[in-house]
């Protein structure tokens, strides 16, 4: 089986959960004997780049093909313009203009490039991750005559928390999901969202819950910080954007401090809401109890989880929430929003409505005060996470490919 996979990011070229999810998926697929060519936007270097990544125990290769582009996951139309400005500064004088003037033009460029790759790369199925690659997938489907599986990790409604979803992006999502032969949704939560917002045929949607890569040595570092000797640590880790609910976290932090001293709140991540959150911490008079780390990468992420006594994911709308699994794998008790995909599948976790700051406070204080609760969540959570492997989702994905191929053949006849 050969898969042409269209994505946004892939480690180490990544800024969020989507890259981790794609890496886990391709690794799982490679271990199951599937050939993957992963196409993604890439800004480093002057030319389109090809990489070969050796992945998995059976030595299956995942080919990475970078298309020169300033596209970034989680980007907004304004964000793209800023990004472009940033690249222009470092551009050599006299170099050819390669980037689109705006986000929409750039998506168009990516689509054109993907068309070329679809001609060159033999494949049995096209698998595209989120809206930015859907147009490219539709094009590729026309070129190669192979079925298109749309993978939905987040909708525009999740990213904006339902406030002013970008009509262009929503439209691309709608078109892509309608055009796809089958759809993989990362949770029932996402499935119900696309049925509601995009009138997708429920029979076309398969839910595949992601697992995490267990072969990461950093999980067993047992990192402790000198901060642990003085304070209990409550962690927020994620993009500091409306979607992730950092504002609810900061309100809960102030509440917790009314009941318990010696608690430190860490906000790890960056995003457009960071200034607002910093100001709010100052307003609430808790600035000395809140630490902002900025964007963390690699080992730092594991350290942050391991030093935390509890991880809170207060997302307003979290299609899945892979980061919660990573926290669990790092043996950190978790409190997760009920408005998340992972809350459907995790048992050994505390769950709250993102807006229920009192309940969030109640649960944070309980984990910090009741030692046995902390230990039980940590131990049972550590056991539960073992079930979230890469091979299960990979096999389910292959089943979806086979079904898509069968469906497509039937339609073609």
């Amino acid at each position, binding site marked *: 089986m050969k898969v042409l996979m269209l994505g946004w990011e892939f480690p180490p070229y990544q800024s969020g959960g989507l890259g981790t999810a794609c890496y886990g998926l391709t690794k799982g697929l490679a271990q199951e004997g599937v050939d993957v060519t992963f196409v993604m936007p890439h800004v480093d270097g002057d030319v389109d780049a090809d990489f070969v990544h050796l992945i998995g125990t059976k030595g299956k290769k995942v080919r990475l093909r970078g298309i020169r582009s300033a596209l970034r996951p989680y980007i907004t139309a304004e964000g793209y313009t800023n990004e472009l400005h940033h690249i222009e500064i470092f551009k050599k004088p006299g170099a050819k203009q390669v980037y689109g003037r705006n986000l929409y033009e750039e998506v168009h460029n990516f689509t054109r490039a993907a068309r070329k790759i679809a001609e060159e790369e033999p494949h049995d199925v096209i698998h595209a991750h989120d809206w930015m690659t859907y147009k490219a997938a539709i094009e590729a489907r026309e070129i190669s005559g192979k079925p298109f599986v749309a993978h939905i990790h987040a909708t525009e409604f999740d990213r904006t928390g339902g406030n002013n979803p970008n009509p262009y992006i929503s439209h691309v999502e709608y078109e892509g999901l309608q055009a796809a032969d089958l759809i993989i949704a990362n949770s029932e939560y996402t499935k119900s969202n696309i049925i509601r917002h995009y009138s997708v045929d429920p029979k076309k949607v398969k839910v595949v819950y992601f697992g995490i890569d267990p072969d990461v040595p950093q999980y067993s570092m047992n990192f402790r910080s000198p901060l642990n000797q003085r304070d209990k640590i409550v962690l927020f880790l994620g993009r500091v954007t409306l979607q992730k609910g950092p504002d609810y976290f900061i309100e809960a932090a102030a509440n917790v401090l009314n009941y318990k001293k010696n608690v430190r709140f860490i906000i790890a991540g960056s995003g457009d809401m960071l200034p607002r959150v910093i100001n709010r911490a100052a307003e609430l008079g808790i600035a000395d109890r809140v630490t902002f780390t900025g964007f963390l990468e690699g080992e730092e992420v594991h350290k942050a989880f391991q030093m935390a006594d509890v991880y809170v994911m207060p997302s307003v709308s979290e299609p899945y929430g892979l980061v919660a699994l990573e926290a669990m794998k790092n043996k950190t008790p978790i409190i997760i929003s009920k408005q998340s995909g992972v809350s459907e599948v995790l048992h*050994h976790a*505390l*769950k709250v409505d993102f807006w229920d700051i009192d309940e969030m406070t*109640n649960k944070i204080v*309980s984990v910090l*005060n*009741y030692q046995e*609760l902390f230990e039980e969540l940590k131990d049972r959570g550590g056991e539960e996470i073992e079930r979230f492997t890469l091979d299960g989702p990979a096999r389910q994905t292959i089943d979806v490919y086979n079904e898509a191929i069968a469906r497509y053949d039937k339609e073609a006849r």
Partner: protein
Amino acid sequence: MVSVCFYFQVHQPFRLRKYSLFDIGNDQHYFDMTKNIEVMDKVAKKCYLPMNQLLLDLIQKHKGRFKVSFSVTGTALEQLEQFSPKALESFQALADTGCVEFLSETYHHSLSSLYSKEEFQDQVALHRKRIKTLFHQTPRVFRNTELVYNNELGRLAEDMGYDAILAEGADHVLGWRSPNFLYRPKGCSRIKLLLKNYRLSDDIAFRFSNKGWGEWPLTVPKYASWINAVNGNGQVMDLFMDYETFGEHQWADTGIFRFMQDLPKELLKHPDNDFKTVSEAAAAYEPVAELDIPHPVSWADLERDLSAWTGNKIQQAAIRQLYDLEPEVKRTKNQQLIELWRKLTTSDHFYYMCTKWFADGDVHKYFNPYDNPYDGFITFLNVLNDLILRVKEKQGEKPSGAGNLIFPTEIQTSIIEQHRT
């Protein structure tokens, strides 16, 4: 001769309301009365009222040849009295027939036999008194919460004067022996042990409506034939189950009422069968052997042990901290506080905290007010912390770090200050 002994367990706990950190020191309403009334209403309608009527009809129809035994917890009796007096009257009508025996147990359906002998005996005494008042019977047979049993409890029940005690006929204690005889608890000289035949009991209680079960549908002649087959190699057939089996675990549309309606007649066709209350069975038969059960067995889950209530750290912590408070709460001599503490000893609170979910989660979900076991723990500990504050206040103690308060001092102080202003 096979004597069929039906014993039905009736129990409802006082479920706790969602009690958060902010309530500690501010609110002494621990129980979710809306929920408790709702459950009692529902169960009375679906089970207690129709099934009691069915049993009453059977008793009248068979003119004393059909008999059953009940154990009704004190917490269930309280809620019947308050929320469903009609259902309580229907139990009293059964008692009046002389064909229904009421057993003895701890008033609060607690695990006190394992943690405090003094409290255990207090709760048993409270329950005996209540049964006497409501049903005009003095119980002769003891059944412990969730059929928790070991040698020590057998000896204790003998010392307390009981004629018999009930236990689960678990494979790991019986081995090759049959549950269809009476036994003598190890170290006892007088008291008799009746064992639940879990296969035939669970055929009704759990498998009756299971279409995946090879014996489905379970017909009256088929079931009666299994019991008849015991003739010649057994004396009793102890069918012990939750009363909510009828109409609640097995809904009316499964045909469970019809099944029970027709069963006695079918069984009485066989000249060697009869129905006995557990006291009558204990009087009629002699133990065939001594049974040594050093470690506690129960009727719960597949394990038939204590792991449903004490299997994990949060359960152990909650129980330990609850029983640690016993001497202090009793020293206040404040009946209201003691009763609140006792209502927290009800085993259901710990059952809700069970985390061995994946294999047998369905049973633990039944009437479980919590979405997950951790929420059950948090609520319970928050309530317990409030109770600890009340006890300290009654003792006139200034809260200090030296007490056995579970919260760090700084929180106690802030809560008490809030409470006083």
